[in-house]
């Protein structure tokens, strides 16, 4: 078809076409040898990043407004004052080249951060319930994370543009899809946090709650924002540890677990930790894996507390993880994950049967954010 059409063309027209084609090749050649094509590429990339950055900014503003409205409804006259304070709050990492007592220093800094942010919020919103305070605290930390993403991208964009740094802009433009995904994830997470819905990370506490529902409870207490429940389940004395719910709270399961072991003077036959774990791309959401070690994803202090306490008294430390991706972990719990939590109970029963005899003492710790899950 095309061939016939071309053959019908007269000579004048075809020579014009070849002239145009020649010119195009010459322009391409000139662009290549002068490096001007890179300049054009750079401008296009900058335009692309700027457009995406504007999207991030509008998401950030939308989310800030959401939290401002919540604060106003709670009787805060100037929500901006408290919001900007919490948004820019930072924690300086402890010195790492001197590792002596680094865990103690890190724990101290983390706990101080926790109480300081809590006090800022409590001071500006009087008569605030624990449940509401926890939701506001978490919502603000999500906005703080979004704010950091926004500021860092803006920083590299401005720097790259000013210095004409091709490599910097290229790295940024290729990282943008992933960053946009993170921003979208945080944006969706905020909705779960403002409404207090259970999130994927709540899998550990949910499993513990399910055991709690099926067992005979002997005593309950709350230590350090963390619930410690003594119960009888499958003829074993079970000590359940989870963050105190149903507010948005991760508690201090490591510190509390080690305290419980010390109180029992090491008289524990088995420790099981249950947590949500990041899956690899391609793995199925809600698949369960078992292993050995402390299944907990904190910066260090809680995890090391579990390892130290169990190794001190030579208590076997087993781990169960429920797999999900980052988005599933911090947004409303998917049904697949809920069903996985039900199945995890069977795994626990199997581990109990294989590793302990009736009347033995077992600690089961559900690690994660307990929002929407009581106990």
């Amino acid at each position, binding site marked *: 078809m095309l061939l016939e059409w071309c053959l019908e063309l007269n000579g004048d027209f075809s020579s014009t076409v070849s002239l145009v084609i020649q010119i195009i090749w010459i322009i391409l050649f000139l662009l290549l040898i002068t490096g001007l094509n890179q300049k054009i590429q750079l401008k296009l990339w900058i335009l692309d990043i700027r457009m995406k950055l504007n999207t991030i900014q509008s998401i950030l503003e939308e989310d800030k407004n959401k939290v401002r409205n919540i604060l106003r409804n709670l009787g805060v006259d100037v929500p901006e004052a408290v919001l900007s304070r919490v948004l820019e709050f930072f924690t300086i990492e402890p010195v790492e080249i001197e590792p002596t007592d680094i865990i103690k220093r890190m724990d101290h800094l983390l706990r101080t951060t926790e109480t300081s942010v809590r006090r800022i919020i409590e001071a500006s919103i009087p008569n605030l319930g624990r449940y509401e305070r926890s939701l506001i605290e978490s919502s603000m930390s999500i906005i703080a994370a979004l704010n950091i993403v926004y500021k860092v991208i803006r920083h590299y964009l401005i720097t790259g543009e000013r210095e004409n740094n091709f490599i910097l802009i290229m790295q940024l433009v290729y990282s943008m899809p992933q960053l946009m995904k993170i921003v979208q994830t945080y944006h969706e997470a905020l909705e779960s946090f403002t409404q207090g819905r259970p999130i994927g990370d709540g899998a550990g506490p949910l499993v513990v709650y399910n055991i709690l529902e099926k067992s005979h409870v002997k005593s309950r207490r709350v230590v350090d924002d963390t619930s410690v429940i003594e119960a009888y389940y499958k003829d074993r004395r079970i000590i359940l540890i989870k963050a105190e719910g149903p507010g948005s709270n991760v508690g201090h399961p490591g510190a509390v677990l080690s305290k419980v072991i010390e109180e029992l003077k090491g008289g524990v036959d088995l420790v099981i930790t249950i947590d949500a774990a990041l899956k690899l791309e391609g793995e199925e959401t809600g698949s369960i894996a078992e292993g050995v070690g402390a299944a907990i994803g904190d910066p260090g202090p809680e995890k090391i507390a579990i390892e130290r306490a169990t190794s001190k008294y030579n208590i076997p430390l087993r781990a169960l993880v429920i797999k999900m991706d980052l988005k599933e972990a911090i*947004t409303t719990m998917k*049904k697949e994950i809920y069903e996985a939590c039900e199945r995890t109970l069977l795994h626990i029963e199997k581990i109990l049967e294989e590793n302990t005899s009736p009347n033995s003492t077992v600690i089961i710790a559900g690690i994660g954010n307990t929002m929407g899950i009581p106990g």
Partner: protein
Amino acid sequence: MNPMEIDVTNIILLVLLILIMIYLVYDSYIKKPRKKTYVVRELLTCTKCKFNVERDFEPGDFIGIIKGKCPSCGGDLKLKAIYAVEKK
């Protein structure tokens, strides 16, 4: 080889180039993966019989609260689970 044939090859090359560019632009800018939407549901179960019902989630609800009576036996309905399911 007359000039006409060279022009034909050139035109074919040009057309191919344009097609590739259209495909690349479509692939990286226009084609977007279909986004899944989720609805949040809550599962209520009766504490006495095996009755259970799934409803839309209401903000502020959490697992374990008693929400209404069982229509078949009159027992308490307990919130058993809150989860997101894909919208069909």
